[in-house]
């Protein structure tokens, strides 16, 4: 299996073999970060540009570390400080980056489809670091790598995704990736946060977290994206925590070794209790570590896929 794509836009567009290739490559890359000299020359002389239209520390830093461990040069552009504020369009910005002879653009944008649009307009590689409510492929890949490490194989696993499914790109990418690799996915949220037709993505729908946890091997707890949609009616925070929050009491009724994941940053006491976030079922920090390996793999593969 060889990688042939210049871009990574979402997991919807990949087949099972491609996803497995990324995960295999990522698990090879994990070793690099354990060395004393945490750097390999694979992308020496390449330039990666972090083009971030949304505030994000964790994803941007993770991509930056990944690129640097591959010896690529990294340039960070935050929309607040760039010519974007002067009204430059996304495509113009992209073409300027291309004209600088950069090799990879890593884009985070609050509009769904922004990465797709940029990829169509540019010849250089585009990696989606999260677009609107659409996809966040590297987050899902690192979640899957973590699951694979903890539980051996994704096939046959029961994974519950709880939280603001409607506004979550993490949920969408996880659903595409997990179902393609043979997991059974349940999305759990108040009715108002379940988007139309999501069952057609091959998931079960639940409005009851206790039931959704019953058979789950893992639960992925989404951030409540209060900032994402000013128009939507959100459930009241305490009420949400009462009905859907992941607490030790709830986990006590689930499988003993259930894995608790969270894409961060955590709203403690809203979607997950501190006790659980810091508890022994939590793999939240391992996810962060795996994020580097996954992003190294993605950057490496897309720069191979251009030929």
């Amino acid at each position, binding site marked *: 299996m060889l990688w042939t794509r210049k871009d990574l836009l979402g997991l*919807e567009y990949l087949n099972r073999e491609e996803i497995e290739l990324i995960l295999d490559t990522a698990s090879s890359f994990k070793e690099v970060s354990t060395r004393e000299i945490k750097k390999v020359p694979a992308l020496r002389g390449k330039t990666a540009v972090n083009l971030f239209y949304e505030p994000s520390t964790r994803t941007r830093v993770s991509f930056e570390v990944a690129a640097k461990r591959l010896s690529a040069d990294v340039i960070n552009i935050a929309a607040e400080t760039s010519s974007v504020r002067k009204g430059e*369009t*996304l*495509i113009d910005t992209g073409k300027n980056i291309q004209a600088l002879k950069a090799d990879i653009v890593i884009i985070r*944008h609050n*509009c*769904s*489809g*922004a990465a*797709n*649009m940029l990829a*169509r307009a540019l010849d250089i590689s585009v990696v989606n670091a999260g*677009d*609107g*409510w*659409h*996809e966040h492929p590297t987050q899902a890949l690192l979640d899957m790598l973590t699951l694979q490490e903890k539980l051996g194989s994704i096939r046959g696993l029961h994974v519950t995704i709880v939280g603001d499914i409607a506004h979550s*790109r993490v949920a*969408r990418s996880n659903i595409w990736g997990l179902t393609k690799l043979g997991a059974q996915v349940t999305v759990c949220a108040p009715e108002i946060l379940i*988007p*139309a*037709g*999501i069952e*057609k*993505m091959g998931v079960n729908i639940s409005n009851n977290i206790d039931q959704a946890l019953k058979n789950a091997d893992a639960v992925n707890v989404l951030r409540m994206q209060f900032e994402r949609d000013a*128009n939507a009616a959100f459930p009241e925070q305490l009420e949400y925590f009462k009905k859907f929050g992941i607490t030790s009491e709830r986990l006590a009724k689930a499988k003993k070794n259930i894995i608790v994941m969270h894409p961060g940053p955590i709203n403690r006491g809203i979607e997950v209790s501190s006790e659980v976030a810091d508890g022994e079922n939590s793999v939240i920090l391992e996810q962060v570590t795996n994020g580097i390996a996954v992003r190294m793999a993605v950057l490496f593969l897309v720069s191979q896929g251009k030929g």
Partner: protein
Amino acid sequence: MNILIKGGRVIDPKNKIDAVMDILLENGKISKIAKNITTKTETFIDAHGKIVAPGIVDMHVHLREPGREDKETVSSATAAAASAGVTTVLAMPNTHPAMDCAENINLLKKIISKSAKINVLICAAISRGRLGQELNDFVKLQKAGALAVSDDGSSVDSDVLMLAALKAAAKCRLLTICHCEDKSLSCFGVMNTGFNSTRLGLRGISKASEYKRIERDIKLAEKVKAAVHIAHLSCSESVEIVAKAKKRGVLVTCETAPHYFSLTEEALLDYDTNKKMNPPLRAPSDLLAIKQGLKDGTIDAIASDHAPHTENEKNIEFERAEFGVVGLETELAVGITELVTPGILSLSQLMQKISLNPSRILGIDKGTLSIGAAADIMIVSADQLWTVEKKKLLSKSRNSAFLGKQLRGVVDYTICSGKIIFKR
């Protein structure tokens, strides 16, 4: 200038003509239709193997002038229209300024008389500034030349104001055209609600936001026995509601646009902003319902909803791009390709939907080849294939939903008031 058109297949649904005949045009009017006319004329057109039909009457067009001449002008839009067989358009009132007073209408009339290549009719706004708050003086608007009223682009949210508008319009026999959208339901949506909006991560526009408002407008029209025309039907529920209303005798007519019977929301899967319009492309089942509505007569008319937008307004993030597509230059060909070729409508029925019925709805003497009628005619090679190319479009904006598509049906001549205004 006298013109003799010889040997074409003449289609005139009003007079139930569909036969090979000759047509003589004299002094801007149709003077004779018969087999083998031998009158000597200055101009002779050989129409063998071609269709000769009434020019298209497009009752839903955004000319953008005055105010947004960067998108389109009366001159560019009517040139585009002429190249595609369109001889009459109804200009929607959402210009800047809006067509909400006699003064603005007079301004537009001046532009039309100076630069229009075809007949341009004017639809005035229902409310002041199209803000849905204060009713315009319909009598004055009509006197100034308005043929219909609409707040198109927006719906009148207030039931009270809408009822008053329908009443006032009925009184002076103006047609009310309704853009049906309940914004409290469509709420910042950008595409049809469903699996595809979910997978693309885009806010949905529910069908309910359209059909609930249609339901209301029909109910209000029924109450005051006013004629109401529903613009751009896009979904199955809407067709059903109109069908039921027609059955009970409500004075309701409706139109759909070519994109609703040729494209579905699946066309959006790569975030193509040239497929973004309002109402949005719907599901395949809706497309079928629209086709069925056209076939069974529930949907009276086809209109382009020609909505030009500049490259700057379209070549941006999907959520931020403007709604709307240009359509004057493709409506006939999309109709032939999607309705006539698969046998949903006959050519004659298509001509009825794009020419005769809109004329009847608007109460104008167009859409026919009757003796004495204005000589507005298109001559069409109905089987000829062509590909929609961006650089060949005459409209000032090229935001067509059909770029790259192969369509059937090419216009060879367009004649307006007896003058050849377009020749391929």
